């Protein structure tokens, strides 16, 4: 449809007004709050407090470490699945079923998915009762409330995101290139390493960055599966508003989290741009 500048302005008026009022303004207020002094002036004190305190640093490093492992697990589990979906599933119905399995968890609240892991990993949970039943252990293991439990829970939540990201790129890989490698005598493994995998890297990198960014800002899973034993930045933010009542510190921590996320998104966009230039 041909839109005149006036049409464009009319169509964008509502969305822009709403987002300025309820998205840009709240974020601006939050950033302002992070610099606010109790007497009304400006200060960097909240950032100094957040960035010089070992406790906050430890939480941030812990968050990044957990996110790193989540990304690794998502890649290791998600790539083979994406490859299988795109190249090996012969029937459209089976593929459809697999997509339903991928999307249904995405449509379930994080809290429900965390609860599922409590049932599986808890002291009277599935893993412990099975191990006891077959006589491998006598007393239940402490599987919950650890870094490992958080990594499992987050990887579970973000696995569909990684898989779909890789799928979207594998679908566009030109199959005649793979056929050519095979016709020239390459074994499937060599054709994969020399042709398919390099061509699918954009999907891997894009998926990894998104998975990492979403892990860094995840609150529900760490909160439920840490049992108070592990600290991550989003939990710290939550506590500033509900336990210690320091919204100024909470705002500074939020901005730190926002900056970390924006850097990751920046890397993602930079990577997409480069990929476009290479493609052209």
């Amino acid at each position: 449809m041909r839109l005149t500048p006036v049409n464009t302005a009319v169509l964008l008026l509502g969305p822009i007004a709403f987002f300025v009022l309820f998205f840009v303004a709240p974020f601006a207020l939050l950033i302002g709050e992070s610099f606010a002094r109790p007497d009304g002036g400006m200060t960097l004190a909240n950032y100094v407090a957040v960035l010089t305190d070992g406790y906050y640093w430890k939480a941030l490093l812990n968050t990044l470490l957990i996110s790193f492992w989540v990304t690794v697990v998502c890649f290791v589990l998600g790539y083979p699945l994406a490859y299988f979906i795109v190249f090996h599933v012969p029937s459209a119905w089976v593929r459809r079923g697999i997509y339903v399995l991928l999307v249904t968890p995405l449509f379930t609240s994080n809290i429900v998915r965390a609860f599922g892991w409590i049932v599986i990993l808890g002291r009277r949970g599935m893993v412990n009762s099975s191990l006891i039943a077959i006589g491998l252990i006598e007393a239940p293991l402490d599987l919950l409330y650890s870094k490992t439990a958080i990594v499992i829970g987050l990887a579970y939540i973000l696995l569909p995101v990684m898989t779909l990201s890789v799928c979207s790129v594998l679908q566009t890989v030109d199959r005649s290139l793979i056929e050519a490698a095979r016709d020239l005598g390459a074994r499937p493994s060599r054709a994969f390493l020399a042709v398919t995998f390099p061509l699918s890297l954009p999907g891997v990198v894009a998926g990894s960055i998104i998975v990492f960014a979403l892990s860094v800002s995840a609150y529900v899973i760490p909160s439920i599966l840490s049992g108070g034993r592990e600290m991550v930045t989003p939990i710290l933010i939550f506590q500033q508003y509900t336990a210690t009542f320091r919204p100024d510190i909470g705002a500074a921590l939020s901005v730190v989290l926002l900056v970390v996320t924006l850097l990751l998104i920046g890397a993602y966009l930079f990577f997409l741009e480069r990929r476009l230039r290479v493609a052209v």
Partner: protein
Amino acid sequence: MRVSLNLADRLGRLSIAGISCLVLVFLALPLVVVVAISFTQTAYLKFPPQGFTWHWYWKVVSDPTFVEAFVVSSQLAAAATATALLLGMPAALVFARRNFRGARALSAVFLSPLVLPTIVLGVAILQYASALGFARSFWALYVGHVVLVTPYVIRTSIASLSGMDPALEEAAQDLGATRVQTFFLITLPQIKPGVIAGALFAFINSWINVEVSIFNSTAQFVTIPVKLFNYIQFNIDPTLAAVSALTIYIAILVVVAIDLAVGIEKAAVNTTTNARS
């Protein structure tokens, strides 16, 4: 000349299939386990569940606080989705049909709630609403959820609009239809499946949200996920499993609805991945 598959190649194929099946089990397991345990006759969580009873479901539907939370969640998700359609479709139309300076930056702002930390959005809305005097109310939840879910409508609508033949719209306009007529008589019927899928994505993502809702609700006025979040801190029992199972059934219904509207494969790849092509 093509080399035929040897044993190692066959093993490779088999192991990819094997790993994939295990990963699919991993994906289904937590949901299956929650549904299974919601029927247990024991008063505590036990796996495997014992017996079969609807008791925990009856407990949920006869508890007014759970029913109330279901009502709040449904009203909120419906209101947020309706608003997201009103804001997202015009924006998508502009981004799909017109290129102007700053269009890319503007669309990036509209889509950014998908990747920005949701907990920070929740905090920002809390402070903003407190300053303006509507903190911890339906309206605070509503504006937060609209911001959260509008990107889904924009993204699916842009995908549908780009996939449609622009000649249809041009023909209508050349034959004298106004832009409004062209949109409602030509464009909308063409992109309807995509819009329905976008609306369903928006609805479910409002319905399952914890991070924005938790900062903007009160102990009495809560959505279902926040109610579950508060409940799980003190009780881990089959009632929790029954409520969780109910939300899983709703997730499955929405997935089926999306599959019927546009096909789940297309919707999943278009809406949940960030690859822009």
